[in-house]
C-alpha cells in the first residue's frame, strides 16, 4: 500500500516562526534568558566562553519579574516593585502563572481584575487590558536592552527557558512574548535541562542525574542521562503551579489567621505578602524571625519549626512527583549519580532536607541556584547561534501526553508523555457515511481520561472529505512536535488527493494577527526610547541597502544587459527617494524608512539577480572573487527579506488524471 502514501500533502499548517526580518543567526551573539516567576535574568556565553550573568547599572543580575502599569509607560523590575504596596492592582507580579491560561483555569488567589472573555486571560490594569504575554514581553525587552548595553551590539537571538512541565499553550505564550519583545526564540529550553547543561559542561559529566527545580511559581523534576555529549532527558514531571510563592502564601494566611483578620484590603494583602517573603528568606538562616506588618497590626514572631510545618504539604507534593518521575524513567533513586538543586526556593533548608532524604544523598549546590538555569540557556543560545562550540546534543521530552478527543469526551492518546522530541504521530481518519464531508478534531494535552480535564490545545475541521462508501476515505493527519515541544498539524489525503482544508485554531494564546499587531504596537507605544531605537535600526538598514545599490548602480548600471531601460527609471527614482529619506532627519517614523527601503529593494531585485548571475559566470572564469561575494551577499540579503514566512499553506491541485 506504500504507493498510496505518495499522495500529495494537501495543507500544512504550522505555528509561525519569528518574524522574517529576524531570521538571521549571528554566531556568538545570542543570549540566554531565564524568565522566572519572581525573578528573571539574562546570561551570555559567546563563542564557547564561560557563561556569565549580566547585571544592571547597580550591579544587580536578578531582575524582579514585576511590571507596573500604574503610569502611562510600563515599568519593569525593582522600580515596578516599589509601586506594589501603593497600587497593587496595577502592578503585575508572577505573571508566569497566567501564561497560556484561560480565566476559568486560574484557581489560585490573585489581586487582579481579569477581563471577561475566552482564551488567554487578560488583566485589567491602568484602564486597559494587558495579557500576561505582553507583560512578559516587557520583562524580556528590559533584559534584551540590558544585554545590548553591556555587549555593545544588537541582540536578536535568544534561548528562553520554560518549566519542563509547561504545556503547549504555555510554551506558545512564552514564544509569543519573545517575538513581541523583538527576539527570535531559537529554543524554548526546559529549565532543569538548562541546569543540567550548565552542570554537565562544567564537570565533563557522565551518568544519571536528577534535577530538582523549585522556583517561585513552578516545580519541575527531570531525570537526565549524560553520555557521549548527549543530554538525554529520560523523564520529567512536576507542577506548573507550585513554587516558593506558595510558601509565602502559607505564611501569610497563617499570620492573617493568628491576627484574626478575615478580609484585608489589597494593599494590606500586598504588605503582608512582602513581609511573608522576607520572613521565609530570613528563616533559611535563622531559627526564629520577628514579623511586623503595621498595616494589619501584626507584631509577632515565627519559628522555623512552625514555618516548616506550614510548607510541609507542598514539599510532600514535590516528593510525590519525584517518585513517579523516577518510576517513569524506570530507575531507582540509588542508581542516580547525582541530584542537582535549582531555583531560589531550594535555599529553604527543609527543601534540601526533603530532597536529601528522598534521594539518599546530599544534593549538588555548587552553582548558584538562581543563575544556573540562565547559564545553561546562554550556553545553548551560543550553540544554536551557529557558534564554534564543542558540540552537544539535547534530547528533551514532551512533559504531557498529546491526545485526541473522541466520542463522549474520552481522550485517545497519540503521543505519550516523556516521548523524546521531535516526534510525530499519524492517525488515519475515515468516514462512516457517504454523506460525511468532514469531521472536527480536538487536540488536548494531559494525562486525564476525559478531554475536559486536560488542556485544550486546538480544534480544527477536516473538510472536503471525498464522498466515498463508509470506511473508504482515508485522511492521514500527522501531529508533529518539534524540538520546542510545539505542535504542527499536517493532513494528507491518501486515496483521492481531493483538496482538504485544515484550520488549526489555538484554544489559548493570542493568534498570529494579534501577535503581529503587538509587535507593531510595541514599536509604537512602548515609549520614546523604543521608537527611537526602531527608527535608528531602520535607518541603519536603509543605509546598508542604499550604499549597496548606489555602488552597484554607479559601477555596473551601464553594463550592457544588466539594467534594461524599463527598470532604470523606477530604480533611480527609488534610489533617490531612499537617499532623500536618509538625509531627511525630520522623518521620525520607522515605518516610513522601512517603506523606502522595501521599495528600493523591490525595484533593484532583478538588477541584483542579474549581477549575481554575471558574477557567478565571472567567478567560473577565475575572475573577481570579491565581486561574486558582494553579489551573493546582496542576493542573500534580499532572499532573507522575502522568505521566512512561518505559516505556510501548501495547496495541491490533486492528482493529474
Amino acid at each position, binding site marked *: 500500500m*506504500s504507493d498510496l*502514501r505518495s499522495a500529495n500533502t494537501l495543507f500544512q499548517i504550522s505555528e509561525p516562526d519569528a518574524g522574517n526580518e529576524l531570521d538571521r*543567526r549571528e554566531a556568538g551573539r545570542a543570549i540566554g534568558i531565564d524568565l522566572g516567576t519572581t525573578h528573571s535574568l539574562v546570561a551570555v556565553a559567546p*563563542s*564557547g*566562553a*564561560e557563561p556569565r550573568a549580566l547585571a544592571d547599572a547597580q550591579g544587580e543580575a536578578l531582575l524582579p519579574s514585576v511590571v507596573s502599569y500604574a503610569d502611562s509607560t510600563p515599568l519593569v523590575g525593582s522600580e515596578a516593585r516599589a509601586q506594589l504596596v501603593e497600587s497593587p492592582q496595577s502592578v503585575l507580579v508572577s505573571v508566569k502563572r497566567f501564561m497560556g491560561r484561560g480565566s476559568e483555569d486560574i484557581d489560585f488567589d490573585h489581586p487582579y481584575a481579569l477581563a471577561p472573555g475566552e482564551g488567554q486571560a487578560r488583566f485589567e490594569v491602568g484602564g486597559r487590558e494587558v495579557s500576561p504575554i505582553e507583560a512578559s514581553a516587557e520583562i524580556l525587552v528590559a533584559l534584551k536592552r540590558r544585554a545590548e548595553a553591556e555587549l555593545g551590539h544588537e541582540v536578536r537571538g535568544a534561548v528562553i527557558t520554560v518549566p519542563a512541565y509547561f504545556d503547549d499553550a504555555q510554551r506558545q505564550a512564552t514564544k509569543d512574548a519573545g517575538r513581541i519583545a523583538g527576539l527570535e526564540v*531559537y*529554543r524554548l529550553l526546559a529549565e532543569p535541562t538548562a541546569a543540567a547543561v550548565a552542570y554537565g*559542561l562544567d564537570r565533563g559529566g557522565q551518568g544519571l542525574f536528577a534535577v530538582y527545580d523549585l522556583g517561585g511559581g513552578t516545580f519541575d523534576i527531570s531525570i537526565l542521562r549524560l*553520555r*557521549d*555529549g*548527549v543530554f*538525554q532527558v529520560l523523564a520529567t514531571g512536576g507542577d506548573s503551579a507550585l513554587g516558593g510563592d506558595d510558601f509565602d502564601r502559607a505564611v501569610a494566611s497563617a499570620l492573617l489567621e493568628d491576627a484574626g483578620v478575615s478580609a484585608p484590603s489589597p494593599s494590606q494583602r500586598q504588605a503582608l505578602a512582602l513581609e511573608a517573603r522576607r520572613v521565609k528568606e530570613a528563616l533559611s538562616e535563622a531559627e526564629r524571625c520577628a514579623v511586623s506588618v503595621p498595616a494589619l497590626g501584626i507584631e509577632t514572631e515565627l519559628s522555623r519549626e512552625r514555618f516548616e510545618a506550614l510548607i510541609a504539604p507542598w514539599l510532600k507534593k514535590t516528593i510525590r512527583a519525584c517518585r513517579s518521575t523516577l518510576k517513569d524513567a524506570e530507575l531507582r533513586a540509588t542508581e542516580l549519580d547525582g541530584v542537582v538543586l535549582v531555583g531560589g526556593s531550594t535555599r529553604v533548608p527543609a527543601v534540601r532536607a526533603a530532597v536529601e532524604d528522598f534521594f539518599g544523598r546530599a544534593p549538588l549546590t555548587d552553582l548558584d541556584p538562581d543563575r544556573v538555569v540562565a547559564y545553561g540557556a546562554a550556553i545553548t543560545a551560543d*550553540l*544554536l*547561534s*551557529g*557558534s*564554534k*562550540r*564543542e*558540540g552537544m*546534543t*539535547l*534530547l528533551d521530552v514532551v512533559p504531557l501526553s498529546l491526545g485526541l478527543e473522541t466520542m463522549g469526551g474520552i481522550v485517545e492518546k497519540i503521543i505519550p508523555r516523556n*516521548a*523524546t*522530541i*521531535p*516526534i*510525530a504521530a499519524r492517525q488515519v481518519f475515515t468516514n462512516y457515511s457517504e454523506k460525511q464531508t468532514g469531521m472536527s478534531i480536538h487536540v488536548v494535552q494531559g494525562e486525564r481520561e476525559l478531554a475536559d480535564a486536560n488542556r485544550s490545545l486546538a480544534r480544527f475541521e477536516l473538510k472536503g472529505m471525498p464522498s466515498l462508501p463508509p470506511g473508504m476515505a482515508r485522511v492521514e493527519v500527522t501531529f*508533529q512536535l*518539534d*524540538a520546542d515541544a510545539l505542535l504542527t498539524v499536517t493532513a494528507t489525503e491518501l486515496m483521492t488527493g481531493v483538496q482538504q482544508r485544515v484550520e488549526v485554531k489555538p484554544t489559548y494564546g493570542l493568534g498570529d494577527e494579534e501577535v503581529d499587531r503587538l509587535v507593531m504596537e510595541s514599536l509604537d507605544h512602548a515609549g520614546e526610547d523604543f521608537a527611537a531605537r526602531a527608527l535608528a535600526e531602520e535607518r541603519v538598514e536603509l543605509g546598508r541597502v542604499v550604499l549597496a545599490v548606489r555602488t552597484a548602480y554607479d559601477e555596473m548600471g551601464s553594463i550592457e544587459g544588466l539594467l534594461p531601460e524599463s527598470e532604470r527609471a523606477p530604480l533611480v527614482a527609488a534610489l533617490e527617494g531612499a537617499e532623500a529619506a536618509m538625509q531627511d532627519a525630520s522623518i521620525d517614523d520607522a515605518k516610513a524608512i522601512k517603506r523606502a527601503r522595501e521599495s528600493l529593494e523591490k525595484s533593484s531585485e532583478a538588477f541584483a539577480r542579474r549581477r549575481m548571475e554575471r558574477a557567478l559566470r565571472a567567478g567560473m572564469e577565475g575572475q573577481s572573487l570579491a565581486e561574486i561575494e558582494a553579489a551573493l551577499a546582496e542576493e542573500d540579503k534580499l532572499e532573507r527579506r522575502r*522568505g521566512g514566512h512561518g505559516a505556510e499553506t501548501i495547496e495541491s491541485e490533486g492528482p493529474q488524471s
Partner: protein
Amino acid sequence: MTSSEASPPAPLERFDPSRNHFERLGLAPAVALDREALESAYLERSRRVHPDRFVTADAATQRLAMEHAAAVNEAYQVLRSPLRRAEYLVKLGGIDLDSSDAGTGAPKPTQAFLIEMIERREGLEAATEAGLEALEDLADELADEREAIVDAAVKALESGEVAKAAEALVHARYLARLADEIENAKESAA
C-alpha cells in the same frame, strides 16, 4: 570549558519512510536486543540527525533533520521496551496487533479467555469493595502474570513461532487493560 572548531555536520541522507525501526538504528532485528548496543546506536544517530545540528542550514535541510530525528526517536521508543519490541517483531512477521483484519490482524482470543476476563473484572469489583490492600494484591499478581506472558512471547519469537507470540501478546493487551482498571480503582480508593 571546551571550545574548538565545530566541524560542519555530515550531510543528511534522503529520508526513506520504508525503513523499519531496526534498520533505522542500524541494528539487526532481534528479540533479545543488546541494551548497550541499542543505546549507543541511538545516541550516535541522534547526534548526527538532531535538528540542532542544522540550525544554520536551509529550511529543506531542517525539515529533513526533523523527519530523521522523529523517526530515530520513535524507533528507540519502540525498541527499548521489551513488550513493544516483541509486538513490533510480530508486526514485521506479518501480524498487526493494531488491526482487526481477520487474516493479518490480531488473533481473536478464545471464548474461555474472554469469559475469564469478564470474571476477573467481577473479581476486581469485589476487590474494590474490599479496599486498597485487596487491590494491591491483585495488581502484584497481575504484574507477575504479565511479565510471564511477555517472556512466553519472546520465547515463541525466538523459535520463529510468530502466530504463537501474537496470541500471547493479545492476552497481554487484555491484561494491560485490566491493569489500568486496577490502577484507576487504586487511585479512587487512595
